[in-house]
């Protein structure tokens, strides 16, 4: 029987970070709880935050369950995490700048050339181009799990356009509205500085040709996209335009936004569309979403694109294994955050081990996301395991495997009262003139008892995440 680290209870004792919540939990009558839960749901419905996190697909109008029980970190816990995340974000950006430049890490033999240059996400069209401040990934979402008081693992990095930050902000907003006394009794670090920090970050990477205050806009694929709510929410908070491809055009080496007062020059695009759909002249010729000529404007320094096209090569699951190596190579530091040990089924010995230990491992598709197409060995039936065995044997390159981690639990409201449920954490690190992290993030919780899959498509919910001030 696996022991799971409970973030609130150490045996019968309440761990210090949760002292402020113990009484709240015990004293809340169940009728009040039900009322508050209904209120929270109504609030979420009203603001319209119903999208699936991380582009997982599924019903876009489905509400992701919100659990009112906050997840708490102490200041020292957070500081340690923060240092580790910032370190990782710096290393990933150094890697991107390098592999689109001279590729020193490959020349030094620290990462196989094939893994980088033959990677589908490696974008030859931007090699040799140095984006402003040399930054490719301006918002790095690092997915973490916890297995003990001091033990965290990075599950994956998201260097393109990590979503879900609107949940971090809305969860807090709703908690403050429903339980104001909690925020009087506990000193909780605010997260509402995120939108200003994001705005500053984006403005700080304006292209060299930009004079004066940079104009920033968010580029969305449109309202049919599952994260459209988040796009418009962030645009509102930052006070910038939300645009779609047809709202923009390229002329004279700049990108312009059509407005009622005539064209306005755009300096920084925070895009929430994939590389392939940015510019039909450079990428997919059939793209209806893109802006013809955008990549020429970008590469000649007329506009900045965040994240930079090509950033995806750093968050590939096969590249992930090498992130600790990047930290050592570029920063000359020891990694503060650990990777989960990973077996690559593309390697013969690894594959053999994986096939022999399927019932104990988690197997994932190299390019998959959202908890689809994955096997959680200990939670699977014999038949499911055998099914997966065939898939791996047929196409070993497509799979990696990791040990089943004993994900920590936090108290969660369930039908019967309060019970421990497994959680993960995605903080959002901003990289611009400064590298910054708001104290908090998105906690996802597996609402099904015993489940280790926190993805919203697989029955996961979200929680407010507190970092206590000292």
């Amino acid at each position: 029987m696996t022991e799971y680290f409970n973030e609130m209870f150490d045996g019968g004792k309440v761990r210090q970070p949760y002292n402020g919540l113990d009484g709240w939990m015990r004293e809340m009558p169940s009728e009040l709880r039900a009322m508050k839960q209904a209120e929270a749901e109504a609030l979420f419905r009203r603001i319209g935050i119903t999208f699936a996190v991380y582009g997982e697909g599924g019903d876009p109008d489905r509400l992701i369950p919100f659990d009112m029980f906050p997840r708490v970190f102490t200041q020292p816990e957070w500081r340690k995490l923060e240092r580790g995340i910032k370190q990782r974000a710096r290393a990933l950006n150094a890697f991107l700048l390098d592999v689109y430049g001279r590729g020193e890490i490959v020349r030094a033999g620290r990462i196989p050339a094939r893994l980088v240059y033959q990677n589908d996400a490696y974008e030859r069209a931007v090699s040799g181009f140095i984006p402003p401040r040399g930054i490719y990934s301006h918002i790095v979402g690092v997915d973490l799990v916890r297995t003990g008081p001091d033990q965290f693992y990075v599950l994956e990095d998201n260097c393109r356009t990590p979503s879900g930050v609107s949940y971090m902000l809305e969860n807090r907003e709703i908690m403050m509205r429903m339980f104001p006394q909690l925020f009087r009794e506990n000193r909780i670090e605010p997260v509402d500085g995120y939108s200003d920090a994001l705005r500053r970050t984006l403005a700080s990477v304006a292209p060299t040709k930009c004079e004066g205050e940079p104009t920033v806009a968010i580029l969305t694929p449109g309202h049919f996209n599952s994260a459209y709510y988040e796009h418009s929410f962030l645009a509102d908070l930052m006070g910038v335009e939300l645009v779609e491809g047809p709202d923009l055009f390229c002329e004279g080496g700049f990108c312009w936004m059509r407005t009622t007062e005539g064209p306005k020059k755009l300096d920084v695009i925070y895009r929430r569309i994939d590389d392939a759909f940015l510019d039909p002249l450079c990428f997919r010729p059939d793209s209806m979403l893109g802006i013809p000529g955008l990549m020429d404007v970008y590469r000649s320094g007329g506009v900045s694109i965040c994240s930079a096209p090509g950033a995806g090569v750093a968050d590939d699951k096969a590249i992930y294994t090498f992130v600790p190596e990047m930290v050592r190579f570029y920063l000359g530091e020891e990694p503060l955050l650990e990777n989960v040990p990973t077996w690559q089924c593309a390697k013969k010995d690894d594959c053999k081990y994986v096939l022999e230990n399927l019932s104990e491992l988690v197997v994932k598709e190299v390019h998959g996301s959202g908890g689809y197409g994955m096997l959680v060995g200990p939670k699977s039936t014999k038949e499911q395991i055998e099914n997966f065995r065939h898939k791996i044997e047929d196409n070993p390159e497509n799979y990696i495997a990791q040990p089943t981690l004993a994900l920590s639990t936090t108290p969660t409201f369930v039908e019967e009262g309060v019970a421990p449920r497994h959680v993960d954490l995605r903080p959002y690190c901003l990289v611009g003139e400064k590298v910054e992290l708001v104290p908090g993030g998105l906690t996802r919780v597996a609402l099904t008892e015993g489940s280790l899959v926190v993805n919203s498509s697989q029955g996961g919910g979200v929680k407010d995440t507190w970092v206590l001030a000292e």
Partner: protein
Amino acid sequence: MILTVNHVTTYDYDAPMGAAVQSLRMFPSRFEGQRVIEWDVSVEGGLRGGSFRDGAGDRVEGWSIRPPVDEVAITVKGQVETFDTSGVLRGHRELVHPMAYLRETVATWIDDSLAALAEEAVAGATEDLNRAHRLSAAISEAIAYKPGATHSHTTAAEALAQGEGVCQDHAHALVAVARCVDLPARYVSGYLFATDDGTPHEAAHAWGEIWVAGIGWIGFDPANKCCPDERYIRLGSGLDAREAAPIRGITQGSGEERLHVTVALDQVQQ
């Protein structure tokens, strides 16, 4: 050799169109095989956009034309001094790792016939240079030059199955078979000066380049059974014809497009 180029590409439309945007890769590469004396690219009624040199060493320039557009005319005029480097792309500054040219594209997709041809061509050859020559010779053999037999979307595999094609098909097939035997390869677009020796050719031309470790990129022109020499002007490269295209453009609207191209290459007598 000093060559002059006069190249006019015209797209006209049967109905007024919206804005046109162009990305042009029409500037001679900088390497020991060619020196630009003068060169001018212009788009009639167009606005010049950003210009830059990409990681592969190609100069790219953006252009746009405001609506309504009923014609897009791109004119290239210039004079280049060329030298024979035996096909070797010497002194060409670029950053892209050769391994980035092992990727397949739709046009260069390797089917069983291409794979078989590649394997047979290099059988027994151990040196990469030798293998590259053999691949080029095999493609010349397998695909006969025949204008009109293929179209702009014909893939390497289709051209091989048909056994005939033009320089684009030869170049696609060559890069496909080279990648098949793990030799990085790319599609090159440029010009070829026609001498009167009766060799079939097209003035707007395309060939392949194969990466040979220890030497670098080497051009092979299966269409003319040779390596590029002083008759060639190199413009740019890519994984396939679409990526290496001298002109990539989009004109908004639903009008029918007609394309006219005139290319004249002349030798300046010294």
